[in-house]
C-alpha cells in the first residue's frame, strides 16, 4: 500500500522522508497545491480589476446614477423609491376622542395662530414645557402671518431647542410652522383690535387664518384639536386632561384677566362664550345678511348670559354650562368636529363669524358645546388705550401730589427762616430775665457799694454796660444756627 501511495504522488521522495515512513506531515503536500492556489488568486485579481474598471467606466458614463441599483442587481428599479412608503391606511373610528385620551394614546393637534407675537413667545413656551399631557402625543402647528417683528426666527429657535431637549419627555410630535400672509391691513394693537367698527372684518380675517392653519395641519390620526392663544398668562398644567375628562365635543374654560389694583384686581376677559338669548335672535333677524354680531359692545345689546360673568372663584370647577358662541383663547374640540366640516366662518354665519360662528355651526351639526364657568385661565393684561390714559392721569396726579408735598416742605422752611424759633426767644428771654436779675443784683450791690463808698461810684457803672451787650449777641448767634440745621 505504501509504495503505491508514494508512486501516485508523482514526486520523488527524499531520503529523510523515506526513513519516516508513516509521517503524515501536512508540509509534504504543500509543493503540489501551491501553484494552483496562486493561479486562482491571480485570476481573482484580474476579475476584480475588470469589475472595478467597468464600474469606473459606468460612473464615468452616467455620473448621476446611484450605485445602489447596481449593487441590488436591479431588483428594485430605484433604491430610494423602494424605501419610500406611499400608501397610508387610517381607520377614523379609532380617533373619536375619549375622556381618558392619554391612556389610549390619542393624539392632539395644538394650533396657535401668530401675528407679531414675539413678546409672548417665551411665556407660551414656558406653558408648553409644563403641559402634563404626554408631549409626544401632541403635534404643534403655528401659522405665522403678516408679522413685522421677529416672531418667525424666535419661534423656530425656541422650537428647535424644545425638540433637542435632553429630557426625553420634552420633545413634541410633528411640528409645522406655516408661513402665509393674508395682506391684512388691520393692526394688532389693543385699540384697533377691540374697536367696534373694526371687529367684523377683523374677525373674518382671523377666521380665515384659523381655517388655513387647521386645514393644513389636521391629519387623519388626530383625535383632538386644541386652540390656544399665546397670550395666556396663567393656566393649569393639566388643562388638556381637565378639559378632556368632560368628554364633550367642544369645551372652553372661563377666561379672565388680572388687573392693576386701581381697576379692581381682576376682570372677565373673553366675552365670546355665551348662551343664545331671545333678544339676540330677534336682533339677528333684523340685521343684514353680511352683518356680524360681536359681543361685548354696547352697539348690540343682546342680553346673553356670558360664561365670563357667571364665575364664582369658589365654585365647582367641573360645573358645565351649555353655550352657543365660544371664545377662541383656549378651545378643546374633538377632531371629528372639524372633520365633519365645522370651521371658523370667514363670512357671516347666522350673523356670527370666527369662533362665535364656530360655536354656532357646531351646534347646528348637533355637537355638544360646553363652557366651564368656574374653571378659569388668566389672559395677559395689556393695558388698553383708556387704561393707558387713565394710568397717565394717575401718574400726573402722583407727580402733582409729590410736587405739592415738596412745595409744602419748602414753605415750612421759608416760614422757619422768616420767624425765629420760639425756643431761642425763650432762651433769650430767660437770659434777659437772668441779666435783669443780675443787673438788679448788681444795682443793689452798687447801691450797697455806693452806700459804702459814696464818694467814688461812676467808674464801676460804665464797666457793667459792655458786659450786658456781649451776652445779648451770644444768644442771637445761637438762635440763628438752629433753623439752618433743621432745613438741612
Amino acid at each position, binding site marked *: 500500500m505504501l509504495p503505491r501511495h508514494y508512486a501516485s504522488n508523482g514526486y520523488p521522495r527524499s531520503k529523510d522522508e523515506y526513513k519516516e515512513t508513516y509521517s503524515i506531515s501536512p508540509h509534504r503536500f504543500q509543493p503540489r497545491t501551491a501553484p494552483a492556489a496562486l493561479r486562482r488568486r491571480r485570476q481573482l485579481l484580474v476579475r476584480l480589476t475588470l469589475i472595478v474598471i467597468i464600474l469606473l467606466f459606468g460612473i464615468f458614463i452616467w455620473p448621476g446614477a446611484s450605485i445602489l441599483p447596481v449593487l441590488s442587481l436591479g431588483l428594485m428599479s430605484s433604491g430610494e423609491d423602494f424605501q419610500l412608503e406611499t400608501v397610508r391606511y387610517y381607520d377614523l373610528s379609532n380617533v373619536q376622542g375619549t375622556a381618558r385620551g392619554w391612556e389610549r394614546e390619542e393624539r392632539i393637534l395644538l394650533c396657535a395662530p401668530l401675528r407679531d407675537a414675539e413678546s409672548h413667545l417665551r411665556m407660551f413656551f414656558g406653558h408648553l414645557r409644563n403641559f402634563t399631557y404626554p408631549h409626544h402625543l401632541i403635534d404643534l402647528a403655528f401659522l405665522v402671518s403678516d408679522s413685522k417683528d421677529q416672531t418667525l426666527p424666535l419661534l423656530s429657535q425656541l422650537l428647535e431647542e424644545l425638540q433637542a431637549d435632553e429630557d426625553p419627555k420634552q420633545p413634541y410630535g410633528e411640528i409645522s410652522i406655516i408661513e402665509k400672509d393674508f395682506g391684512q391691513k388691520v393692526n394688532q394693537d389693543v385699540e384697533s383690535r377691540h374697536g367696534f367698527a373694526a371687529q367684523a372684518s377683523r374677525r373674518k380675517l382671523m377666521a380665515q387664518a384659523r381655517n388655513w392653519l*387647521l386645514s393644513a395641519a389636521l391629519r387623519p390620526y388626530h383625535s383632538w384639536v386644541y386652540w390656544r392663544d399665546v397670550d395666556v398668562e396663567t393656566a393649569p398644567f393639566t388643562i388638556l386632561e381637565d378639559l378632556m375628562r368632560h368628554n364633550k365635543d367642544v369645551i372652553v374654560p372661563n377666561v379672565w384677566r388680572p388687573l392693576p389694583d386701581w381697576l379692581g384686581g381682576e376682570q372677565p376677559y373673553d366675552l365670546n362664550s355665551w348662551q343664545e338669548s331671545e333678544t339676540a335672535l330677534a336682533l339677528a333677524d333684523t340685521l343684514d345678511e353680511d352683518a356680524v354680531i360681536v359681543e361685548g359692545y354696547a352697539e348690540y345689546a343682546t342680553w346673553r348670559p356670558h360664561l365670563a360673568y357667571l364665575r364664582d372663584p369658589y365654585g365647582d370647577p367641573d360645573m358645565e354650562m351649555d353655550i352657543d358662541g365660544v371664545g377662541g383663547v383656549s378651545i378643546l374640540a374633538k377632531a371629528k368636529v372639524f*372633520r365633519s366640516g365645522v370651521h371658523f366662518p370667514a363670512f357671516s354665519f347666522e350673523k356670527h363669524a370666527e369662533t362665535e360662528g364656530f360655536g354656532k355651526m357646531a351646534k347646528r351639526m348637533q355637537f355638544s358645546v360646553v363652557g366651564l364657568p368656574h374653571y378659569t385661565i388668566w389672559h395677559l393684561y395689556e393695558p388698553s388705550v383708556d387704561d393707558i390714559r387713565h394710568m397717565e392721569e394717575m401718574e400726573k396726579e402722583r407727580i402733582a401730589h409729590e410736587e405739592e408735598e415738596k412745595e409744602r416742605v419748602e414753605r415750612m422752611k421759608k416760614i422757619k427762616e422768616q420767624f425765629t424759633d420760639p425756643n431761642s426767644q425763650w432762651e433769650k428771654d430767660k437770659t434777659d430775665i437772668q441779666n435783669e436779675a443780675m443787673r438788679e443784683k448788681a444795682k443793689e450791690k452798687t447801691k450797697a457799694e455806693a452806700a459804702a463808698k459814696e464818694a467814688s461810684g461812676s467808674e464801676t457803672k460804665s464797666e457793667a454796660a459792655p458786659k450786658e451787650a456781649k451776652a445779648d449777641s451770644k444768644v442771637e448767634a445761637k438762635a440763628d444756627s438752629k433753623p439752618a440745621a433743621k432745613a438741612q
Partner: protein
Amino acid sequence: MGPARSLRRTNPLTIIVGVVLCIVIFVFILQPSSSDSTASQLRKASAASNPLSPPTSPFRKQNEKANGKRIPPPVVHYHMNNVTSTSDPVGNRETVLILTPLAKFYQEYWDNLLRLSYPHELITLAFIIPKNREGNAATAALQEQITKTQKSGPEKKRFASIIIERQDFEPPLVSQSEAERHKMENQKARRAAMSRARNSLLFTTLGPSTSWVLWLDADIVETPPSLIQDLAAHNKPIIVPNCFQRFIDSKTRRRAERPYDFNSWQDSETAQQLAAGMGKDDILLEGYAQMATYRTLMAYMADEKADPNQEVPLDGVGGTALLVKAEVHRDGAMFPPFPFYNLIETEGFAKMAKRLGWSSTGLPNYKVYHYNE
C-alpha cells in the same frame, strides 16, 4: 481536479464576451433611473422623514434610533405663500389631490385614473370608504390595485402618495342601489352623510402643499386623459365638467348618452321663492317632479357641435367631477351636512364658496362619463 483545469484553460475571448455582457447589463440596469430622474428626484425630495408628515407626501419608515429611542420629529417650515394654483399647473409643478368617496370599486375607474396624463408624481389619491361589508370588499379590491401600481407597476404610473380612510360613522342607508339612493325622502340623510364623508376626507388630507383638489366620484369611469390640465387651464376657483352616462338604447339598440348629474345649475326666481317659503331645516332638491324649481340645468346645455371650452356661471355644482383651487377649501368652503340656505352637500358648497367670495363655473360641452348600472 476538473474545475481547476477548466479555469486554467479560460480563453481571453470568453473574458471579452463576459465584459461586453456586463456592460450591456449595466446599461440595462441604469437606463430607467437615468431616464426620468426628475420625477424620481421629485419623489425623493418631497419624501418626509416620519409617518406623521402631511399625507400628501411619501415618507421614510424609520423614526426610532437603534436603541429603541424615539427620534423627535423635526421642525418643518411650510411656505404657503409659494403654493400657487395657476392655469399652467404642469409647468409650475402644482400638486393635485384627487378625492374620492368610495362605496364600490370599479376597475374602469382605476384604469381611467392610470390613464390621466397629468404627471403622476404630482398626484395624491385619497379615498374614504364606509365601514361595512361592501366597504370592506371595495377596500380589498382597491388595495390590490394600489399594490399592483405602486410596487410593481412602471415608475411613471406611480402616484406620489395614496391615503385610504375608513369612515367613522355608519352610512344611513343599507342599500346603495340606484333606485333606493335616489328616493326623495332618503336624499337629505344620504347627502348629509355624504357631506360628512367628503369633509372628513378633505380636511384630513389637504395638507400644506396641495394646489388643486379634484373631486372624482368612484363611478366616473371615463374622462379625457388631460382632464386636470383642461379644467385647470380655465383658471377658475371652482369648475365642473358636464357629467353624462353612456347606455345602450333599448329601442334603437344603439350606443347613446344621457345627462346624469343635475346638481349643476343656475338659480331661478321660482327656486328662490320656494326656498323663502321653506323652513330652516328643509332642503331644495333638483331633478324631482314634486319640486319643480325651473332652474337652468347645465346637464341640458350640452351641445355636440359647440366649443368644449365654453364657460357658464353656476350657482349650484355637482360633485361627480369637480376641480377646486385648494385656497377655496382652505378659506373654509366645505360641504354643509346641514341645510345651508336650504341647500346641502355640493350645492351648499357652491353657496358657501359664494359667501366667501368664490364663484363657480361650468363647462357644458366638456364631458365625463358615469358608470351605468
